[in-house]
């Protein structure tokens, strides 16, 4: 669905490239996470893929279209949810969605259905200018689905949302994924990426450092330890066991058999920890 070969992009001819010779592919139906801290080159890459930035160097094919040749009809297949909400403040939520729906040549979704889906029921006739930041963000997210996109660009889809709404957004993304929608998710939130993505790419200083599935990364970079808290002689004891060491495995089995277990956690690495391990940099 997306093919990028040797993409580079410069904002200033004498400056450092925002994106430097990156290559990757996204399969149809896949949710691909593009992860990195602010200024890493995520938005630049998405800008080129969506056509908002002109392709300077490299080959980029998106949804069957070569982005070096501007063809606006490709957007019939594409949905874009921006990090910064961008809706018409003087139009109501419903008017906003209905306006955009008319700009597509394909069958579009019902505005009210999308409003309900993102939890804005009852606000359809309220002008978007009166919405809170989170509500505007949800409306922007809803708009990105108006044309039933085959390829969906999601830029920080849960940023600034409260946990309940963020969970709703994640459910919607998963539901779309189940329908076969391909998603290109740009985020610096590793937990979102871990939950939603089939594969992730780590980008830093305009270069991709690694691409793999979250599961493989955890297996490769996780410490393979188990932390256990248990009661012994009325006192709480805490021990760490190596799951790759046979003696430790036997000892862990013994503890589970003989003692009252208070807590037990596998010490698999989070994506964030792996990111820091791989890139040597944090995500903020």
């Amino acid at each position: 669905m997306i093919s990028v070969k040797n993409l580079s992009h410069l904002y200033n001819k004498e400056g450092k490239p925002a994106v430097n010779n990156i290559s990757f592919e996204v399969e149809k139906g896949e949710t691909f996470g593009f992860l990195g801290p602010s200024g890493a080159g995520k938005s630049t890459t998405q800008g080129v893929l969506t056509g908002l930035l002109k392709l300077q160097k490299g080959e980029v094919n998106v949804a069957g279209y070569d982005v070096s040749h501007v063809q606006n009809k490709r957007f019939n297949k594409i949905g874009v949810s921006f990090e910064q909400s961008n809706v018409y403040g003087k139009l109501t939520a419903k008017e906003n969605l209905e306006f955009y729906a008319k700009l597509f040549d394909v069958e579009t979704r019902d505005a009210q259905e999308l409003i309900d889906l993102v939890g804005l029921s009852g606000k359809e006739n309220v002008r978007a200018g009166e919405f809170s930041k989170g509500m505007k963000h949800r409306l922007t997210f809803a708009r990105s689905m108006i044309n039933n996109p085959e390829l969906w660009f999601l830029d920080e889809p849960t940023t600034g949302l409260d946990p309940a709404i963020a969970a709703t957004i994640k459910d919607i993304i998963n539901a779309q994924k189940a329908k076969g929608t391909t998603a290109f998710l740009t985020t610096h939130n590793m937990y979102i990426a871990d939950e939603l993505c089939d594969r992730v790419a780590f980008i830093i200083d305009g270069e991709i450092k690694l691409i793999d599935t979250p599961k493989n990364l955890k297996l490769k970079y996780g410490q393979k330890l188990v932390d256990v808290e248990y009661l012994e002689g009325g006192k709480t004891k805490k021990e760490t066991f190596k799951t790759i060491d046979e003696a430790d495995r036997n000892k862990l089995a013994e503890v589970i058999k003989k003692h009252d277990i208070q807590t037990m956690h596998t010490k698999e690495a989070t994506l964030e920890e792996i990111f820091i391990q791989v890139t040597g940099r944090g995500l903020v």
Partner: protein
Amino acid sequence: MIKKILKVLQKDFKTSRRDFMAAYIIMAPILIAIAIAVFTPGLNDTTVNLAMLESDDAAHIEYMEQFAKVEVFESVEDMEARVEKRDDIAALVPAGDSYEIVVQGNEPEAVPGYTKVLEALYQLGATKEETTAELMSFGHTVPPLKTMFVNMMISMTVMLAGMLIAISIVEEKTENTINAVNVTPLTQTGFVIGKSLFGGLTALAGIVIGLFITGYGDINWIMIILVGLSSMILSLVVGFIQGLTSDDLMEAASNVKMLFLPIAGSIAGYELLADKWQWTMYWSPFYWSYKANLLILSKTADWPTVLLCTGMVIALSLVVYFLARPKIREGLS
């Protein structure tokens, strides 16, 4: 594509109705037209100033006062001094059994002509009650002052089209909605056409309504619309540039107001410069549109002149457009 362009147009109309400044701009030409209709004199109110001698026949003075604004003087010298002042006035100086009409020389032909007719009517003993005739004009079918005001209203309305575009673009910028439109099948050209139609049609509607309000419903509408549309090209280009380079509404509005300068300069140049200096204004599209509109409003326009003026407006505006096009494209990306 047409359906999408019309959707942009419809959206802009809807958002501008909900914006105080845009709504005011849309209403401005109508308010100005009402003011012109109320405060400028009608054709039958048009008159001349007459200077007469105090020693003249009282009946003569009284007769003239029915049709002209009469000022009386003690001596011929006083009358001549008055005639030499800046405004238009004709002196009726007794010369034996008849009268001589003394003028400064730079008055419109209508001034001595009207005075001559009035004097002839007096000599013939004609009275208002005895005649069914109505004095309409001398060389004019409509009042010159009113025509000038209406023409200025048209020029201002054209500029307001640019201001509407600028406001609309600034709103798109501040709400970052241009990016959202850029990821739809609507092309940049379609977006620009939709926005231009919004500014252009709004201004055109303002001009048409304004002309009806001021009593110019019987002019050649094809000519006036042709000139109006052509003179909007420059206004729209300026509107786009200012919209894309301004950060807020006030900045955009004040920048577009700069258009007043060439407009006012063109009008002043046309009205005040002697024929031999008119060429100094040929660079301004507003000069040509003002000139064409004046002829159309006074019903003395012919197609070759109107087409020449329209051609000049379009050619000069296109030069500005092609110079500004890269900036517009860059701003909309």
